[in-house]
């Protein structure tokens, strides 16, 4: 039986290094095409990060039933899970875990699928750790409420949530420390 490449350890190592770069340099778009064959970026990232120790929730039902046993992740609720898969064009309708003062790492990682990463009408200026000066990021298909809600969620550092945005093949990270100023495209 041929294993799909995203379930192979060597591919997961490559995807992890792309994630390290993405989180280290918020707003820098990383393209996973060369590592993941036909799979989507979101599935590749989930395959890389999940195992039986992780809690994952899928409020917008994006994850195929056949993937759950392979991911091995325990199902959580959007309010408690460490990882949340979501669709970007929908309005955020949950309150993710933000961690505690003593354990801010319990703040959720949001894995949000959008139409395009790196181009699109929504344009923003980023600064903060990992950004030298300023960096521009363009997105398509992210409901502006996400950024408004994020502003609340990350207002009390070290508490907060970390965002990873995807299109089919590309990823970009907005960790809780990144300051976002929308410059165009928000309605």
């Amino acid at each position, binding site marked *: 039986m041929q294993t799909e490449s995203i379930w192979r*350890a060597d591919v997961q190592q490559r995807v992890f290094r792309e994630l390290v770069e993405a989180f280290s*340099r918020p707003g820098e778009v990383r393209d996973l095409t060369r590592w993941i064959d036909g799979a989507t970026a979101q599935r590749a990232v989930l395959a890389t*990060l999940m195992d039986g120790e992780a809690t994952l929730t899928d409020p917008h039902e994006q994850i195929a039933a056949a993937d759950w046993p392979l991911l*091995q992740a325990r199902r959580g609720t959007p309010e408690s899970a460490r990882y949340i898969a979501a669709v970007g064009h929908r309005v955020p309708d949950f309150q993710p875990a933000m961690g505690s*003062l*003593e354990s801010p*790492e319990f703040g959720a990682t949001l894995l949000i699928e959008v139409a395009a990463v790196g181009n699109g009408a929504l344009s923003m200026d980023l600064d903060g750790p990992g950004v030298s000066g300023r960096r521009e990021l363009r997105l398509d298909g992210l409901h502006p409420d996400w950024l408004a809600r994020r502003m609340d969620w990350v207002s009390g550092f070290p508490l907060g949530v970390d965002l990873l945005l995807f299109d089919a093949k590309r990823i970009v990270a907005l960790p809780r*420390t990144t300051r976002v100023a929308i410059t165009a495209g928000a309605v």
Partner: protein
Amino acid sequence: MNATPLTQGGNAYNFGFLDEYAKKEVRRAVLKAIAIPGYQVPYASREMPMGRGFGTGGLQLTLALIGPDEVMKVIDQGSDDSVNAVNLRQFIEMTCPGVSTTTKTTGCTLIQSRHRIPELPLTAQQIIVLQVPYPDPLVVVEPSEDKRKTMHGEADYSRLLVKLYEDIVKFDEITISHRYPTRINGHYVIDPSPIPRWDVPKLDDSAALILFGAGREKKIYAVPPHTRAEPLAFSDVPFRVEDFRDGAGQRRACARCGSVDSFLDEFVADSGSKTYQCSDSDWCDGVEASA
């Protein structure tokens, strides 16, 4: 298994020694550590085939990061040839087939280091992993980890500043020679591992990602690239790096390569005389070769 290892001819170990679940645990902690600069993320540190205290935390980070196309450099106190560095390098070569190792700072993609950051500025293509014996700078003023976690969360470092102040009262100078407490992005204060003061300014606005791994204490933390790192100090008693001037005020040079802008180790000869040499052996070789 949700991460099928590649079968390797003749090698019974998984690539990178650790099983894939152990790597995933480290990887999730690394991403949170980067997202919360300076915060010590707890993780399930594995037993390694070497004693705690010999770089098991750094090694677990290295093995979770490393891929077959890596160019790896391992340093111990600036030198690629000391026992600890040689052991770790051989272990990595044995368990990670395909990886190439080097002693050159230029061209390597991943560096595991004990107690030094190379003199040559690192680039955005590189990641440095530092081995940490004691990750928490507050341990000198507060024995309870629960209380330390609250102090960190509130960025309450007043007792640490009092400790520095007491130093100044007693000695007219902050006496911490290494592991100098450094504030990351205006919030968490980290123990930057036992690097000399000389290396502390390299943490600030670094081009490379800096990761810290404490295996025995089961903590991972990070200084992301282009992040503020400020050594704790007072406005009237600024932070200073080591002073390598001799009695006459002349900057000492390395006895081997003649460099006057590197961190020097002091060697005492049998006769009692002292000589000074670069701590970073690759830097020393480079300066000597270009002379």
